[in-house]
C-alpha cells in the first residue's frame, strides 16, 4: 500500500532521512566513480591522475588473455543464467503452487543449501565430484557449477514474488476455460515476470562475479574475467582493469534499462 498522507513522517524527519539517503548513495558510488574516472587516466599508477587518455581501453582490446577471459565469462554467464532461471522458476512454482508432492519438504530444504554453504566448500566438493565422474574441466564444468548455486537464488526471488500474487487470478482464468498452459503464459508468467527477471539478473551477477568456485573447477584456457582479474590485480594494478570494469558496468546498466523499458512497454500494451 502506498504511503498515505496521515502516515507520512514530519517534514524535518523526512529531510534527515533524505540526507541520510543521499549520503548512503555517495558511499555506494564513491569507489565506482574512482574506478570509472581512473580508467581514463594516462598514468599507469591507479590513484595518480595523468591526464585524459583512452590508452587503457586500447590495451584492453589488444590483450588476448583478457579478451579470452571476457568471452569465457559471457559464455558461461549466458548459459548458466538461462538454465538456472528456467529451472529455478519451475522449482519456485512447484513449491509455491503445489502443496503436496513426493519429496517436497526435502526439496525445499535442499533448495536453501547452496545459499548458506561457504564458497570454498562448494568449490572443493564440485572439483572432487567432477573428477570422480570424469567430467572434463573447462567451460562446461564452470557452467555446471554456476547453475548449481544459481538455481536456489532464482527460486528464492521468484518465490518471494509468488507469495505476493493473488492466486484468484489463475482461478478466474480457469473459470474462463483457459488451459493450464494458456493460464500460465498469459497470467502467471507476466505477473511473476518481475520476479523471474530479478532472479535472472541476480543469477547473471553472481555468475559474472564468481571467483572462488570458478578458479577451482576451471580447466586449461577457460579462465573467466574475475579469475583473470584476481590473478592480475594482485600483481600489477593498472587502469586496464578499471577499463574492463567500466565497460562491464556500462553493459549491465544498459541491460537493466533495456529490461525496464521492455517491462514498461509490456505494462502499457498489456
Amino acid at each position: 500500500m502506498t504511503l498515505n498522507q496521515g502516515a507520512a513522517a514530519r517534514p524535518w524527519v523526512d529531510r534527515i532521512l533524505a540526507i541520510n539517503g543521499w549520503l548512503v548513495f555517495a558511499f555506494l558510488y564513491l569507489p565506482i566513480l574512482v574506478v570509472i574516472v581512473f580508467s581514463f587516466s594516462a598514468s599507469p599508477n591507479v590513484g595518480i591522475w595523468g591526464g585524459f587518455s583512452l590508452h587503457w581501453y586500447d590495451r584492453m582490446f589488444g590483450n588476448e588473455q583478457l579478451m579470452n577471459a571476457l568471452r569465457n565469462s559471457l559464455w558461461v554467464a549466458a548459459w548458466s543464467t538461462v538454465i538456472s532461471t528456467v529451472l529455478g522458476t519451475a522449482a519456485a512454482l512447484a513449491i509455491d503452487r503445489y502443496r503436496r508432492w513426493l519429496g517436497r519438504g526435502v526439496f525445499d530444504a535442499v533448495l536453501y543449501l547452496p545459499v548458506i554453504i561457504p564458497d570454498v566448500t562448494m568449490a572443493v566438493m564440485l572439483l572432487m565430484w567432477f573428477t570422480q565422474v570424469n567430467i572434463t574441466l573447462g567451460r562446461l564444468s564452470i557452467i555446471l557449477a554456476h547453475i548449481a548455486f544459481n538455481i536456489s537464488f532464482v527460486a528464492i526471488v521468484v518465490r518471494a514474488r509468488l507469495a505476493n500474487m493473488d492466486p484468484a487470478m489463475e482461478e478466474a482464468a480457469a473459470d474462463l476455460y483457459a488451459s493450464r498452459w494458456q493460464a500460465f503464459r498469459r497470467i502467471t508468467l507476466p505477473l511473476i515476470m518481475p520476479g523471474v527477471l530479478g532472479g535472472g539478473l541476480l543469477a547473471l551477477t553472481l555468475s559474472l562475479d564468481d571467483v572462488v568456485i570458478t578458479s577451482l573447477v576451471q580447466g586449461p584456457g577457460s579462465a573467466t574475467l574475475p579469475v583473470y582479474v584476481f590473478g592480475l590485480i594482485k600483481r600489477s594494478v593498472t587502469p586496464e582493469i578499471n577499463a574492463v570494469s567500466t565497460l562491464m558496468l556500462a553493459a549491465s546498466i544498459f541491460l537493466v534499462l533495456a529490461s525496464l523499458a521492455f517491462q514498461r512497454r509490456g505494462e502499457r500494451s498489456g
Partner: protein
Amino acid sequence: MTILDEREGNRETAVNPKLERRARRRDAWRGFFHAAPAYLYLTLFFTLPLIIVFVFSFASRGRTGRPLLEGWNIDSWTRLFEPLVRTIALRSFWLAVLNTALCLLVGYPFAYWIATRRKQATRNILLVAVLIPFWSNFLVRTYAWRMLLDSDGYITQFGEMTGLWGRLLFTVPAVFLGLLYGYLPFMVLPLYAAIERLDWSLVEAGRDLYASGAAAFRRITLPLSRPGIVAGSILVFIPSLGAYVTPDILGGAKTTLLGNYIVTQFGAARNWPFGSSISGAILIVMLAVTVFYFRSGGRTL
C-alpha cells in the same frame, strides 16, 4: 478445491470425493514434474558432492592433502573443539554479528526512505541505483576502497583535514567499512520489500489515536517490518560468517577467520579432511539457524 482453498486451509466437504482425489493426485504429479529438472540437477551437482565432502571428513589425509579412502577416523571432527578453532569461530561470529548490526543501522533508515517515496517510478529507480555498483567486479571495488583509504587516499586526506581520522587502511574500521559496503544491498532489499508492503492505514490509525511520530514508528512500523529485518539479517549474517577476502585486502590479513582457515586447509595446510569437517560444521550451524527462522514464522527469504 482450488489453490485458494488449499491456502486458506478450508475443509469443505467435497461434492465428488473420487474426482477430488484424482484431481489432487494429478496436482501432486504436476508439482513433482515442475520441480523434477531442478531437483535432479541439484541432486546430481549439489547433494551428492556434499555427501562426498561429509564422507571425506572422516577419511585420513594423504601426502598431497587429498583424502585417502581408508583409515577412517573422526580426528577431523574432534579437532573442531580445539581452542584455536574456537577462537577463530568466535571471532568470525562476532564479525558477522557486528556487521549485521551495522548494516541494519545504516540500512533501515535508507530502506525506509526509499520505500516511502510516493511514486512507484521513483522507488524503482532508487532501487536500481542501489544495485548498480554491484555489477562491477567485487575485487576491483575492494581495491578501489584500498586506494581511497591509503595514506594518499581521498578519504584519508579528508579525515586529516577535518582532524577526524588518520590512515584507515589496514585497521579494523576499514574492514567494517568494506563489509558494510559489500553487504548493504542484502539488507536493504528485504527491508524495502517489507516496508513497502506495510499497511500504512494502521500507522495513520495510530496517529489518529494521538501517538507521536516516534511512538507510531516504535510500536507499529518497526514490529510490522520485522519479517524484513529478520530476512535481511540472515542474508547478511550467513555470508559474513565466511567472509575473508575483504578483511584480508582492507585489514591486512592480520586475523585468521573461518573463511581463510578453511581455504588454508585446502591449500597450504594440505588437510582436506579437516577442511571438509569445518565446512560441514558451518553448514550444520547455518542450517540450524535457517530452520529456526522458519519455525519462528518466517515464510520465505
